[in-house]
């Protein structure tokens, strides 16, 4: 049995709530829109790495499923929660069109937060696209616990970079990369990750799956534990529908189809079987009952 660098992320401290909340500000941010919501109960419960799920389309909507969006920041004093939305399909486009005074129905905070390292551990935070936003709260928390924070924010182009100022203010060092070189260094986040992973005691990543995989692989290769926040298509966000699973190796070394909403979205980077996402490997618990046989 292989030994793993990471312990599975534990559950959040507090359960989620469901509330109708008001949008207090909406601001374009490059290719994205940043929304702040008056959601004191969510703000007070949220831990970095968690997400919220929005009902979309208004009272007459034909789109029933909630849209999951990472929490980009909370201000428990002001009672607000911030999210960064990338308009993509109908749901996220609708969300990005919300204006101050509009109300939205939100459930959260959902999912497991990033586990924290021993105080003082140097941490590498890697965000891809809007994924960087989800790391801002983590950066602050790590700093407050005495960690040195190294951050990388990467994207396809300058407009898709996110939270560069916030991370720049919080991190001890920030590297910016863009695929097309329109801002920061040209190339993928891995150019910076490869340089910084050696100095780090733990790595965290949020962004597209191929990026998560690259960061997890680099960390594991360097003997550094990593936690990634995955983004799988979710129908419920609360753990009841089983649509959001991916193959993850558990504490017992067995691979299960784990729900990214309640057993994730944060998983040990060395525990997610990235190559098998969307497949059914024979050694997943219960694959035999599906008629899959060991090779």
């Amino acid at each position, binding site marked *: 049995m292989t030994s793993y660098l990471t312990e599975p992320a534990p559950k959040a401290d507090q*359960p*989620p*709530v*469901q509330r109708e909340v008001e949008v207090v500000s909406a601001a374009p941010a490059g290719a994205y829109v940043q929304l702040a919501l008056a959601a004191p109960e969510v703000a007070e419960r949220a831990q970095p790495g968690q997400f919220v799920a929005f*009902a979309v389309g208004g009272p007459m909507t*034909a*789109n*029933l*499923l*909630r849209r999951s969006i990472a929490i980009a920041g909370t201000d428990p004093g002001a009672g607000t929660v911030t999210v960064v939305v990338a308009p993509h399909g109908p749901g996220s486009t609708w969300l990005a069109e919300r204006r101050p005074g509009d109300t939205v*129905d939100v*459930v959260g905070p959902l999912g497991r937060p990033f586990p924290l390292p021993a105080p003082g551990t140097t941490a590498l935070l890697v965000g891809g696209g809007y994924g960087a936003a989800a790391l801002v709260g983590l950066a602050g928390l790590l700093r407050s616990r005495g960690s040195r924070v190294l951050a990388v924010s990467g994207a396809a182009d300058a407009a898709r970079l996110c939270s560069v100022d916030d991370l720049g203010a919080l991190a001890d060092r920030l590297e910016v990369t863009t695929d097309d070189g329109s801002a920061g260094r040209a190339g993928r986040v891995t150019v910076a990750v490869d340089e910084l992973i050696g100095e780090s005691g733990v790595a965290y990543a949020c962004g597209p799956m191929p990026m998560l995989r690259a960061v997890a692989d680099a960390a594991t290769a360097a003997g550094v534990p990593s936690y990634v926040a995955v983004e*799988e*298509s979710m*129908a*419920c966000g*609360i*753990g*009841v*529908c*089983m*649509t*959001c*699973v*991916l193959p993850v190796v558990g504490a017992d070394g067995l691979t*299960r*189809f784990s729900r990214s909403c*309640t057993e994730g979205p944060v998983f040990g980077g060395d525990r997610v079987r990235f190559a098998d*996402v*969307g*497949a*059914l490997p024979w050694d*997943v*618990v*219960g*694959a*035999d*009952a*599906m008629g*899959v046989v060991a090779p």
Partner: protein
Amino acid sequence: MTLVETSVDMTTALGSVPLAGPVLTASGCSAFGQELEPFVDLATLGAVVTKSVQLRPRSGRPTPRMAETPSGMLNSIGLQGPGIDGLLAGELPWLAERGVPAFVSIAGTRVEDFAELATRLRGVPGVLGLEVNISCPNVESRGEVFACDPVAASDVVAAVRAAADPAQPVYAKLSPDVTDIVPVARSVTEAGADGLSMINTLLGLVIDPDTMKPVLGGVTGGLSGPAVRPVAVRCVWQVHAALPEVPILGMGGIRSGLDALQFVLAGASAVSVGTAVFSDPSATARVHRELAAALAERGFSSLREAVGHAHR
């Protein structure tokens, strides 16, 4: 919230077993109930209908497992679950401890599988009854779904009724994907079903415009949600008209109390809320509240009076 907000008597029954309220979860749509705890007082549910369990633990199908569709969704989970041992060791004791009745959905690919599951569930504390998910492929009949053939369906139900605890009512869950649902309903009832759950999902397919292939790995999937509600109400109506004495657990697209009312008026004595829980985790409690209010407004003093009222 408490169960009784209005003067309406909301008690009902599944077969011979009394229920405190008529709103249940739907199999596969609230897992085993645990995750709803932050959102609803589980004690207000008539029962938790558990995700269909099979003999062995199952991984379920690879992703993608769902596609959103207009006012509905398509799913192809492949009955991921812990298997009967896991259920008996973990989920059922959890529910029993909290006093939440479990209506256990069982599934299999052979008649004997179903019978064995029923045997294993005899006398288990908190297990109120069994819902037999016959919308599964029958391995002994070239994969044809049990629910699509009155004979295969009644074989399963007869075997389950024979094996099950006599105190546990057995409901057969019917598929709408048949030319005529009444003969299937009649034949499973004659085979001993104490009641009928209607409807399971409709067979559907969505093609991804980007990949130009079916979205779901399993090609087809089950369509659920408000989109299918008129089909579900029609099935309940037809079966109640033909078999007025057979209790019906109605489901398919229920989102509100008025939706539930349609099922009750058509002949259902209890309802399951499925897909709506994904959009509103407190949907079951809300539907209960709204249904009670709707019945009160219409002058009913009890839910029972309203069952099948649209036929009168």
